[in-house]
């Protein structure tokens, strides 16, 4: 992905490659700060009062959100000219915004690392740290993000209206508009923590359990057409069905975050019912991929990008398992009163973010590499196989370890000790909790190894397969006609 060689003719796709380049670097930061935080669970003096857990975790989760957003924007810029058949309108503005956004993010990261915290006044919220999980970016950066996203949306809308507006694009336009608008719900200060959390969840939940999921449904659909040659009409119909199910369950599924933050009791029933329905569309997405795969098998269209397709399968199954099953396991209020705010949440969070979002966007990276080098058949390389295997094993391993930690914490801190300060430490110091955290760290290292293979593969697979295909076509050209036909 780094080399200058490119068969990409659309400027929009060149911009997409830049978005993916930053995304993969932020993915590395995501894993790196996660590892530091995981070490601190076992060795609390590690980097104590230098880069504290709070800083590591902030960078861990923000790098995650930002790399996913970068890859999401990149994927749209990649798809846009292929869907519309025209160059992206306002591509110059798009490039400018890319550099502004990247510079802003670099400044925010440096402030988080070097300044870390501010005095208790509104200036700190504007300049240093907003201090609200996932939305830590200071207010100036929020405004910058909104401006950049508005520019991006303008590009998408204008291009779609000028060129061909496909069903997939229509879904994306509608979805991205909602996604951007929701961010505004997180941009105000209130002294009332209940009100703060109420609107905070509008951003967090309606992103990851509604608009991001619909985005994924649209991108997977596009990817299936691209890699399998799936029937566009069927794919687009499926996307509308998925959209209905995702928004039908996800919008009111917001209620499962309103059990204990000061909000009325009726959210118990609403949250329980709709969040219990949330896994249904995720099964649908998995079935869709497998169905299309089976339907196309043996036909003219072989999978033309095996690594991308494998990542789509990891995506749909991981989404169902991580977001669907692991989410459902602790979503009912009767259970959630004991699991809310314990290691249950990161157990679910790790597999859900990986399955639902990381995997699909890594799949998109392979499609980008294929397009950049003009490769007809993308096969798996050894590094690619190691990458997908180790990342998946690492994430599942971390999820299992954190699930055990979550059980421990729920049982000891919540049930046995009544949730007090003493109960918290009793749970944290129980040997089973420490064992789980040890496994989490080990599996974190496996994940990091997987990333190294993935990174190497993304850098090298393009030139390698391109050279192979070039060698193959010369060989074919020199061989007798009959041999070329059977090759």
């Amino acid at each position: 992905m780094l080399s200058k060689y490119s068969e990409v003719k659309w400027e929009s796709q060149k911009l997409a490659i830049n978005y993916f380049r930053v995304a993969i670097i932020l993915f590395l930061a995501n894993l790196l700060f996660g590892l530091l935080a995981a070490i601190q669970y076992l060795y609390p003096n590690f980097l104590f009062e230098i880069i504290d857990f709070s800083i590591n975790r902030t960078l861990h989760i923000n790098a995650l959100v930002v790399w996913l957003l970068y890859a999401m924007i990149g994927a749209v810029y990649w798809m846009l000219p292929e869907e519309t058949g025209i160059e992206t309108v306002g591509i110059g503005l798009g490039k400018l915004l890319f550099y502004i956004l990247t510079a802003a993010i670099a400044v925010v990261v440096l402030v988080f690392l070097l300044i870390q915290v501010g005095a208790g006044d509104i200036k700190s919220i504007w300049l240093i740290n907003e201090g609200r999980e996932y939305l830590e970016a200071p207010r100036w950066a929020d405004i910058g993000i909104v401006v950049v996203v508005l520019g991006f949306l303008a590009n998408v809308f204008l291009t779609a209206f000028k060129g061909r507006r496909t069903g997939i694009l229509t879904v994306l336009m509608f979805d991205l508009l909602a996604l951007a608008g929701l961010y505004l719900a997180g941009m105000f200060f209130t002294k009332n923590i209940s009100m703060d959390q109420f609107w905070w969840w509008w951003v967090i939940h309606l992103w990851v359990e509604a608009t991001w999921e619909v985005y994924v449904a649209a991108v997977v659909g596009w990817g299936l057409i691209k890699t399998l040659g799936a029937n566009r009409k069927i794919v687009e119909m499926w996307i509308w069905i998925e959209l209905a199910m995702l928004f039908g369950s996800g919008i009111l599924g917001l209620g499962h975050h309103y059990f204990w933050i000061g909000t009325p009791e009726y959210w118990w029933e609403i949250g329980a019912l709709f969040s219990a329905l949330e896994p249904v569309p995720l099964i649908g997405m998995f079935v869709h991929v497998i169905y299309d795969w089976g339907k196309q098998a043996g036909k003219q269209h072989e999978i033309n990008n095996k690594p991308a397709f494998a990542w789509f399968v990891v995506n749909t199954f991981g989404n169902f398992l991580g977001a669907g099953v692991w989410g459902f396991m602790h979503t009912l209020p009767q259970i959630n009163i004991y699991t809310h705010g314990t290691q249950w949440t990161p157990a679910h969070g790790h597999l859900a973010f990986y399955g639902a979002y990381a995997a699909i966007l890594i799949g998109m990276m392979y499609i980008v590499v294929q397009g950049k080098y003009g490769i007809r058949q993308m096969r798996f390389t050894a590094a690619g196989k190691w990458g997908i295997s180790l990342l998946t094993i690492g994430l599942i391993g971390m999820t299992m370890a954190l699930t055990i930690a979550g059980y421990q914490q729920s049982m000891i801190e919540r049930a046995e000790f009544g949730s007090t300060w003493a109960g918290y430490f009793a749970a944290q110091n129980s040997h089973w909790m420490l064992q789980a955290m040890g496994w989490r760290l080990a599996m974190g290292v496996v994940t990091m190894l997987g990333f190294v293979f993935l990174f190497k593969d993304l850098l090298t697979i393009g030139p390698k397969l391109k050279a192979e295909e070039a060698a193959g076509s010369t060989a074919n050209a020199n061989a007798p006609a009959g041999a070329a036909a059977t090759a």
Partner: protein
Amino acid sequence: MEERPTSVWGSTRFWRKSAGWVTGVSALLLIWLSADTVPQISMRSAEDLDAGKPMRVPPPTVINHKITYEFDARRGHEIPIIGEKEAFFGRNDYSEEEANALLTHGKLTVQAKNCMSCHTLLGNGGYYAPDLTKAWLDPAWSDQGPYMAMTGTTSREEAMAKFLMKPSTYPTHARRMPELGITEDEAKAVVAFLKHMASIDTNGFPRNFAKINGGVNAK
């Protein structure tokens, strides 16, 4: 023109319309429910508090009162009970304006120090440190807990404030809270924020808070 499908189930148009309706109705329901919830979780007035009206989020002047967390037989879980006047840093007569300023400063400090990255507030945040929802009521800060003796203080609020200003000098476990440069004013404001948070009706979360003493506090 789309081809006429043989069945409605295979019609993109049908599903597109359905998606529109489902999304629209869900969004309207959410807005309607939010319109009911937002007034309920808005801070009530000091007059409402003095009149003893039931409320989910009390006004900042709740810091003038004693707060307990008791089982409510009708609702089937614990709720915060706002009791008689109680001194907070030696006073129980904070005006609405003073209490408001204190709570605002406290909340700003909680955000500027990024407390939520290690602690959970109302159960949301990081899992590296104890949940703070009902921290104000935690026995750790009472005369039964370790902190009053360690900080050489005689009240809950003083122990909390002194700890917050120099947390890593009062270690109880290998995992310590780092120095965050919290000033005396900020520390007092954060304690006011914590006391206010303990008075919020969280539908019984956390369950049995401080009711079970476990092995550690067994008497």
